[in-house]
């Protein structure tokens, strides 16, 4: 349901998962040592992994899967947001920071002055789908048209070849990373000088599910959501970068071949060149096995597994 508490609840659930994994790992290693069945010559290693809430499910799934392969490596995953993860990397308290956006210049300078050399690795991608009610005859839009809709320049579907209906704009709340990405890359078309804001009558809904349920029943509505959240009863709009370009529907393939314009990279940041267990873990993340997990969770793998 459409509850903000869900966000808090998810965090608690994640925390519980993390704690229980840690306990389980502890129990496993203790058992093996006690029984002496696995003579572990190697030291147990821990990888601290922190950052983006968008990516926390993915990072957890990776950590769990990797632990099955390498029981000696313990990966502890926490959320908190991209900014939190990057700050932790700068302060040297984590090995890997997850981020659903690129590091800002300020953050990069802070890192350098703190003796860190952030190394950016793209680990997965995420497409943002533009969705409307299935009864809406609109099939495709350009980025400029979407920007004009959300900035309030276009307020009726008839102006872009649809029915004579008012446009109801739906967005996530301002605390969502997806909201910020949409503002910068779609509404402002990636131009940092432009200060366009969302039209004031944009409905800010507290969850992805809130957007989906309103679009399902309201033929006036338009919204955006991560590709993983789109259900078959919503109509996905084909998007073109400009009028000359082809209209493209979001999918794993179109994100991989860069033809779908509203796709973002998901990053992991480390300090300097990866070494030891971190290097092995990052190498594993690029394996078909790990990239299949990406696909299962509704994100887009960096290459098709």
């Amino acid at each position: 349901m459409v509850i903000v508490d869900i966000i808090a609840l998810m965090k608690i659930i994640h925390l519980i998962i993390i704690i229980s994994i840690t306990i389980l790992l502890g129990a496993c290693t203790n058992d093996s040592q006690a029984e002496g069945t696995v003579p572990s010559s190697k030291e147990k290693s821990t990888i601290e992994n922190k950052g983006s809430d968008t990516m926390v499910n993915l990072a957890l799934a990776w950590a769990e899967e990797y632990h099955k392969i390498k029981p000696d490596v313990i990966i502890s995953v926490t959320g908190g947001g991209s900014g939190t993860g990057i700050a932790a990397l700068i302060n040297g308290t984590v090995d890997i920071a997850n981020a659903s956006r690129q590091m800002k210049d300020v953050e990069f300078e802070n890192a350098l002055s703190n003796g860190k050399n952030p190394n950016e690795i793209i680990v997965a991608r995420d497409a943002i789908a533009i969705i409307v009610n299935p009864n809406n005859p609109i099939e495709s839009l350009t980025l400029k048209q979407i920007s004009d809709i959300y900035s309030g320049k276009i307020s009726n579907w008839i102006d872009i070849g649809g029915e004579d209906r008012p446009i109801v704009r739906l967005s996530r709340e301002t605390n969502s990373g997806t909201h910020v990405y949409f503002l910068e890359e779609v509404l402002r078309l990636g131009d940092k000088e432009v200060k366009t804001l969302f039209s004031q009558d944009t409905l800010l809904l507290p969850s992805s599910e809130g957007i989906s349920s309103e679009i399902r029943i309201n033929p006036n509505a338009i919204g955006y959501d991560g590709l993983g959240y789109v259900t078959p009863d919503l109509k996905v709009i084909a998007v073109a970068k400009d009028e000359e370009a082809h209209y493209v529907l979001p999918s794993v393939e179109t994100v991989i071949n860069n033809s779908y314009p509203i796709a973002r990279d998901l990053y992991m940041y480390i300090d300097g060149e990866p070494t030891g267990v971190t290097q092995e873990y990052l190498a594993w993340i690029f394996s078909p096995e790990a990239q299949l997990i990406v696909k299962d969770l509704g994100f887009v793998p960096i290459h098709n597994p």
Partner: protein
Amino acid sequence: MQESQNWSEFIITRLIKIAGYSAIVFVGAIFFFLLKEGLYALTEVQFSTFISDRWYPIEGYYGLLPLLEGSLIVTIGATLIAVPIGLGTAVFIAEVAPRWARDVLKPLVEVLGGIPSVVLGFLGILVFAPYLRVLFNLPTGLSAFTGSVLLAAMSLPTIVSIAEDALDTVPRSYRNASLALGATEWQTIWNVTVPAARSGIVTAVMLGIGRTIGETMTVMMVTGNAGVLFKGVKSFFNPVRTMTATIAAEMGEVATGSIHYHVLFFIGILLFMFSLAINITAYAVVNRKRKRSERILS
């Protein structure tokens, strides 16, 4: 024996005293905390920003007017709907309904009060908002009106049960005297019973409003949360953003100690002031000096 009874009495009195004072301490502590966190906002943000018309905190727009208006519109709307229906129901239950209907209605109204707000919001989103959109041909059913109706439904049980209790305490002899003078049943209710129960009815209405203005979950789910200024009666059927929904939606992710954080606490202070004003008004109305005619009546 005597000794131990004294001891237990001593402990019990102390416990009751602590319980009594703790309420004061809690309210004081909450108010102190709100002021401590919220008043920074006044030094960090210019007053002209507060009275601007845009709320977009991630880019430094802290206009509080749309939020204030949003809360007011929804509260006024809910009051306009709930008060006539609530008082009508209370009068019906207390004065008109036969015994058996009364025994059924009163518990039913109280059950309505036990419905969690998130469940009402859920019903609002899935059933009520789509229905209103088609009925009034609105762009979207997520509007101030939808919020008002659902909040009215939430404050109804409070209004009905307190007003009904107040009507119940009016002595039978008043009604008998009025009827004996030849007044009709309606004249008796309107001119004798309801005025005699006035202070209780005002309390009922005020508590109902208090319930409305502080409600968060339902409004966040059904009002659409778009911070738009009021532009005529039509705005009543457009989305609004209330103060409570803003705090609930944004407090979870805001960085502690940031300007945005302090402004959210400042909104909390405003809300606190609102409910305080409502409670003081109710208190003043109930305890005001009575007119001579009312003194004789009661």
